[in-house]
């Protein structure tokens, strides 16, 4: 069973998307959960649309549909996460849409570095989530 954590950068991006339902991003939590909740660590390790494979982890960009707007994977969201190969934990780093007010075309090297810095700096204070329940924030047992 995988554990899902998020950085403050991810939560900031997520909150921006769900803040105004009229902007058409309100399904984002469901879309993330649908893509990940039915799969085990090994499955998720194989998912990617783009990735950097390192010794003990991978950085992955995954295409997700926007079910609320009936948009395909190509026009939906991009989820950036880091998956540890041994520890079976996934760190959600960023989420952005490909369409609408908050659209972003791609993510560059400097931005990836900024997300990694955020992860490294937050260390023990990452937020644990329930992937089966709309990314509900949980307290580590």
């Amino acid at each position: 069973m995988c554990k899902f954590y998020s950085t403050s950068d991810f939560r900031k991006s997520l909150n921006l998307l769900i803040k105004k339902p009229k902007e058409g991003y309100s399904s984002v939590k469901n879309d993330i959960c649908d893509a990940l909740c039915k799969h085990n660590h090994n499955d998720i390790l194989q998912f990617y649309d783009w990735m950097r494979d390192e010794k003990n982890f991978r950085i992955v960009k995954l295409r997700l549909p926007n079910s609320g707007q009936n948009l395909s994977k190509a026009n939906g969201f991009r989820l950036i996460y880091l998956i540890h190969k041994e520890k079976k934990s996934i760190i959600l780093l960023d989420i952005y849409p490909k369409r609408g007010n908050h659209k972003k075309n791609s993510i560059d090297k400097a931005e990836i570095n900024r997300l990694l810095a955020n992860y490294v700096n937050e260390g023990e204070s990452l937020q644990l989530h329930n992937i089966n329940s709309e990314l509900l924030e949980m307290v580590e047992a």
Partner: protein
Amino acid sequence: MSYIEVISNNISTVKESYETVESMETQLNKFLDIVLDYQASLKSLYDTIDELTESIIKAQNKISIQEFYKIEKGLVSLHKKLVELYVKERNDEKCYLVAKSYIKNLHCSINNLKESIDDFRIFRIELDEDREYEHFVNIINDL
């Protein structure tokens, strides 16, 4: 050829162009007053080029974005001075035409230098980003 070599070559070209411009002194003898003014401007341009060369030499040991800003600032100043020269020489058509062709070459070599510095800066930024990425990779691999 490395970026530093390209930049150094372009600096040599700029210097050669300046030397050509300086040789205008003989051709412009009858416009002595103008030439004297011109020489003063050239001296100032030489000083700027020397500063640029010094920055490049320093940059070979320790390259920082600040060095590039200094070089860019120098180039902007050069362009400004060249424009002043154009205006000055425009008073006399013969002198102006000779000056124009030399200064055009000078402009061209300065632009080449600027382009090679820009290329180098992009290369440096990418290198810095790669190093920064490797730094985080090492930390996360050890987590």
